[in-house]
């Protein structure tokens, strides 16, 4: 039976593509997004018997209908974008930091701690400085712990940073438990110590901060010597050694930067949005950010698009769930389906399928 099978020639085989023009890559990705949306539309019809056009309409409404929704969309997009920016330099270095969730949380916790202990006791400008410093420093340290072990003993950073997330969650629970004597586990918002507000919306300062960070990160990665070193280390550690880059130093420096940005995200979440901290404050955006960054191929400018896309989906599907009284989990499902499609479409950018015409076959061996 085996011998017979092997005489059959495979119908196609897969070869790596040499190169694909940029606009072709873009087209494939756009097609993937469209395909995902169509697929979701079909799902809606099949499972919930919803008119697909009403479904799309509802998504658009959820994201854009009122100014408040539009600002909210920008706000959630900027938090996501901020964390995505944070993980990007590490990823470019091939350091799989999946601990952004925890790093952001620790940054938020430190902000809250400063607000809790120092709020009202020191002058407000000083309080702001303390909040910013605490957020950045604490998250930086949180990110540096796995980096030190990676640099010194090559400890697996994926698993290490993953574990650090859960340590961070427990740390938040611990602090809240100590701060809130009632035992409710909920820390009341400390709104009066929040970061200053200005501009057309309460969210505006956050959005502006992240916009500036995006440009800075783009410049840093593209035009600075540090950014260049990160690329070299990521592409080939051997080359880095050869030209005398201190790889350990670059790992530590880059993770410190990653952590600092996560800290800023935590600061914006706690000091600029919620004025309190909880274990769900980052709301899994630390993980979503990894996908946002990866989908944008670690380019901060593309990340504006990908984070927008994800934030739009999250806002849109929330509306769908209220409009059609489907439970909220639909948001996760639709987001994940879109991610699957985009993740999968990379294959068609990297490889091409060659069909064999010489002989009739039936399926791949």
């Amino acid at each position, binding site marked *: 039976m085996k011998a017979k099978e092997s005489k059959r020639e495979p119908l196609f085989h*897969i*070869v*790596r593509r040499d190169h694909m023009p940029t606009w072709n890559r873009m087209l494939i990705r756009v097609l993937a997004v469209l395909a995902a949306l169509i697929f979701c539309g079909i799902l809606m019809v099949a499972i919930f018997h919803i008119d697909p056009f009403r479904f799309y309409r509802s998504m658009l409404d959820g994201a854009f209908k009122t100014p408040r929704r539009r600002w909210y969309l920008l706000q959630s997009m900027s938090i996501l974008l901020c964390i995505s920016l944070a993980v990007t330099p590490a990823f470019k270095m091939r350091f*799989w930091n*999946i601990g952004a969730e925890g790093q952001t949380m620790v940054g938020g916790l430190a902000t809250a701690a400063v607000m809790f202990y120092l709020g009202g006791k020191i002058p407000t400008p000083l309080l702001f400085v303390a909040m910013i410093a605490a957020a950045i420093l604490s998250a930086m340290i949180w990110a540096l712990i796995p980096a030190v*072990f990676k640099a010194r*003993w*090559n*400890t*697996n950073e*994926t*698993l*290490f940073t*993953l*574990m*650090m*997330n*859960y*340590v961070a969650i*427990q*740390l938040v*629970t*611990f602090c809240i*438990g*100590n701060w809130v004597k009632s035992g409710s586990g909920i820390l009341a918002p400390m709104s009066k110590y929040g970061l200053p507000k200005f501009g057309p919306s309460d969210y505006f300062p956050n959005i502006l901060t992240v916009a500036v960070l995006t440009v800075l990160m783009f410049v840093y990665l593209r035009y600075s010597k540090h950014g260049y070193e990160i690329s070299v280390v990521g592409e080939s550690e051997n080359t880095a050694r050869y030209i005398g880059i201190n790889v350990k130093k670059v790992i530590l420096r880059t993770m410190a930067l990653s952590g600092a940005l996560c800290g800023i995200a935590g600061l914006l979440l706690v000091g600029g949005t919620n004025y309190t901290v909880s274990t769900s404050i980052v709301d*899994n955006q630390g*993980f*979503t950010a*990894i*996908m946002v960054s*990866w989908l944008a191929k670690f380019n901060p400018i593309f990340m504006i698009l990908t984070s927008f896309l994800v934030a739009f989906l999250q806002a849109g599907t929330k509306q769908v769930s209220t409009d059609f009284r*489907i*439970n*909220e*989990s*639909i*948001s*996760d*499902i639709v*987001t*994940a*389906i879109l*991610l*699957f499609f985009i*993740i*999968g479409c*990379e*294959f068609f950018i*990297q*490889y091409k399928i060659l069909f064999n015409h010489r002989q009739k076959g039936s399926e791949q061996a």
Partner: protein
Amino acid sequence: MIINFIFSAVRLGMTLLFGSTGETITEKSGHLNLGIPGIMCVGAACGCVSEALYTGAVGQGNANRILAVLIPIVASFLGAAFLGVIYSFLTVTLRANQNVTGLALTTFGVGVANYLIKTVEIIKYSYASSFFTAGFPFAAKLGGFGKLFFSYGIMVYLAIAIALITSFVFNKTRVGLHLRAVGENPATADAAGINVTAYRYLATMIGSGIAGLGGLCYVMDNLNGNWEYVIDAMGWLSIALVIFTVWKPSLGILGSILFGALYIASNYISGTNKALLNMLPYVVTILVLITTSIRNKKEHHPPAGLGLNYYREER
């Protein structure tokens, strides 16, 4: 009290053991599946929903004890294994990044599970919990000894059995040898004539299926049939357990009980803030990760091909 403590630790531990055995099988094939939390949620949901459907079909009074246990187990396994198929399709066939795929899968799984569980009424599945938790009838007569060894529900014994079988397969069979080779060095395995694609697909499917049972175990055994939105936390803990037990399912039995004990210890200690205790499983795992990397002993390392996709004609 100490007996009660151990009893509870074992119950929770076995939930984790399912997860970690499943993830170990997956990782041995070279797949770092970070979708396990989502997979466990889906496993739990499929089990509960199938139970509810069965109950709806026959009427609650007429439910057959055996079927009421068997159907959810099968459904849970299949539902979770299906997520394994999605993961494998993306990472093996489409060669997508494993970390990103896994995380997306967790998002997906959590969403699907939360959706599914709301499609049925809780009373239609939660009653069956008593079928799951029933221990051996003679356990009560043996006092503390009976409680410690014979009073657990079926899922606990199933978890241990699966862990032992997996350990046996890894170390004593050809399939195990091939699987380990695929995870260590897929190019070598391929050159030796092992179907890397098939092994990766199957290991991920079976591993996911087993992990899915962990979700079911958590709801039906630990929570006595109540649904809680913390199943994904069990998934992350399971991944930690895999590292803690250095990819050995037999060690996983003890490790999972220890993790279970650490996790519930806070309920037995009064006065202190419990969060620090809850931190312990993760901290201990980090310490294991660090010590193994410092000692640099090859046998305790993750599979060398973990996280890397394989493409034969790469050059």
